[in-house]
């Protein structure tokens, strides 16, 4: 990764800069290999409902991390955008209860869902294009919750508060999606592909321009790039990523209801992204695994009734102690061992 990292739209207090280095691709491939064989060693529940569920959340969180890391935008609309894909499919596919449009096969409904999420991403990007930092945070939050409220009160298209159930998902290579392993490996493959896409994209001229905009809008504009179009396009890409997450989320939950994509879901995605670390897309998945483990076993560790206090406190501590999340902690720990000579300019600022 390259790019001048000094100056720019910096007043965030978060580690919103990409980690990089030659180790990223080998480490990612190693991780993928581990994830491929892990189900042989762990119970099906862990495969499907811990790892699988975490990867689904991780994909949605990665759409936020992608925007934050490379564009400097902390968007709180990503869960809503994921929900748009989920709802689009739920409205279209056969078997859903209630059947709203129905009869559209998964092969067609899935691309439509992804298109809907991408368009919603572009729309959010277009509305928020002239703002940044906390303004963008506020606007995306308002849009996210606003769309969710709309879905919740609209009976005709989205069946309101109850949502749409019995969206069982497609058959993958002739096997039902609801099989734990079919679900897990499909999800893992999609996550890996999207992750690779992000890593590739940030090295393209588009990705470099995006990072340039993050660091110094004026300079990029002066170089003849159209900053606004790049920003909107970045939201479109993030919408596409979130859309995949939303589809998998809907199939995993056998349906979708507005409560899952409201402020609670939005904040959960933010928590995952921040706990993992906004410095690299892999942080989204790390954060998601931590969140899901907490979420699943909170009842055993701590009174389930007060789960929100627990997760809120964990989040608060992370933001206070290590705003760049677990990734940042790991990086610092690594530096301690390696005794790296000098921090990069990005860290020196903190």
């Amino acid at each position, binding site marked *: 990764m390259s790019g001048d990292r000094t100056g720019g739209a910096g*007043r965030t207090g978060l580690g*919103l800069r990409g980690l990089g280095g030659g180790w990223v691709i080998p480490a990612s491939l190693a991780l993928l290999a581990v994830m491929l064989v892990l189900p042989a060693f762990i119970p099906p529940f862990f495969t499907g409902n811990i790892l699988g569920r975490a990867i689904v959340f991780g994909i949605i969180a990665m759409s936020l991390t992608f925007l934050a890391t490379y564009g400097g935008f902390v968007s709180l609309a990503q869960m809503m955008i994921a929900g748009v894909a989920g709802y689009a499919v739920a409205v279209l596919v056969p078997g859903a209860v209630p059947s709203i449009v129905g009869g559209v096969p998964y092969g067609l409904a899935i691309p439509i869902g992804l298109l809907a999420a991408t368009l919603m991403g572009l729309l959010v990007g277009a509305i928020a294009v002239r703002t940044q*930092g906390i303004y963008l945070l506020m606007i995306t939050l308002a849009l996210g919750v606003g*769309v969710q409220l709309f879905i919740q*009160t609209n009976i005709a298209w989205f069946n309101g508060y109850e949502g749409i159930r019995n969206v069982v998902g497609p058959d993958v290579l002739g096997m039902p999606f609801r099989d734990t392993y079919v679900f897990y490996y499909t999800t893992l493959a999609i996550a890996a592909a999207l992750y690779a896409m992000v890593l590739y994209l940030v090295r393209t001229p588009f990705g470099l321009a995006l990072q340039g905009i993050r660091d110094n809008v004026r300079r990029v504009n002066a170089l003849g790039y159209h900053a606004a179009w790049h920003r909107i396009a970045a939201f479109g890409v993030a919408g596409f990523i979130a859309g995949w997450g939303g589809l998998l989320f809907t199939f995993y939950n056998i349906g979708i209801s507005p409560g899952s994509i409201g402020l609670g879901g939005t904040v959960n995605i933010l928590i995952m992204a921040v706990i993992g670390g906004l410095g690299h897309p892999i942080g989204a998945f790390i954060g998601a695994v931590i969140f899901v483990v907490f979420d699943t076993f909170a009842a055993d560790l701590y009174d389930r009734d007060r789960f929100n206090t627990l997760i809120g406190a964990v989040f608060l501590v992370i933001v*206070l102690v290590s705003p760049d999340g677990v990734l940042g902690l790991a990086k610092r720990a690594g530096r301690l061992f390696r005794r790296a000579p000098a921090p990069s300019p990005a860290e020196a600022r903190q």
Partner: protein
Amino acid sequence: MSDSRPGGGHGGIWMTGGLAATVVLNGLTLAALYFIVASGFSLIFGLMRTVNMAHGSLYMLGAYVGYAVFEPLYDQDLWYAWHVGILAGIASAAAFGVLMQVSLLGWMQGQELRQALVTIGVSIIVADQLLAFFGGTSRQFFAPDSIFGSTTLPEIGRYPTFRLVQIGIAVGVGVALWLLLNKTRLGLMIRAGVDDRQMLAATGVNVPLVSLAVFALGAGLAGLGGIIGSTAQPLVQGVDVRFLLTSLVVVIVGGMGSIAGTAIGAILVGLAEQVGQAMFPTYSVILTFLIMSAVLALRPQGILGRPA
């Protein structure tokens, strides 16, 4: 069974054809509540650039603490129960706001996004703790009898008196804020700080202390809003989200840090909600967000906001 004899009452007596006037008045009363709450948000943002995502939590905290004080007094039929509840609500929200500023936000001044995330963390914990203490039962304040019933208005007929009081309180808050900002030394310092924080510090003003005062004031307004709001509508878990969202939209539309802008934003949003609900109920939410998007497209800084 005389109590349930049919035909005893005439439900429609206050249906006088002035439905449009009623809707507009409803919009204005709602706007009054939104203004009270959002002005606190805007004030804090204006001076400190802190987006307090726990603003809705302050609303809810003030309301619940106020209720805890109000309830035993109301049970004893004391006429001042509601008034004491208001004071308790304002005081508790202001105290919590100060605590937040001192312990969490003050030392990360300038790291806006991090502050926003900290306040999100705080709001998650506050909501959960309030649920633990007060449970999920809905509650409501009951205003003193003198302002509880209804008043007959031309065109509209009988209209809840408290709603009119609500408008009065909002106007009072607006005037008081104007006086504070324009006629007092503190106001002078706040306005100077909004324009240029560094310059204010350079002139020897104790900026952290001014910040605390502003935080207390902004949070106290959320607490006041909490009591007023919970007198007009029930107090339930989840109002924090609603009022945070409303505050965000109001200040995005009206312009950050501008009290007059907040008033305009509140009126637009309040009217949009009520008109939307009356005309196309299931799509009313969209109207609010159309307004927000339109303002952002034309004036990203909000109607009366200054360019960033």
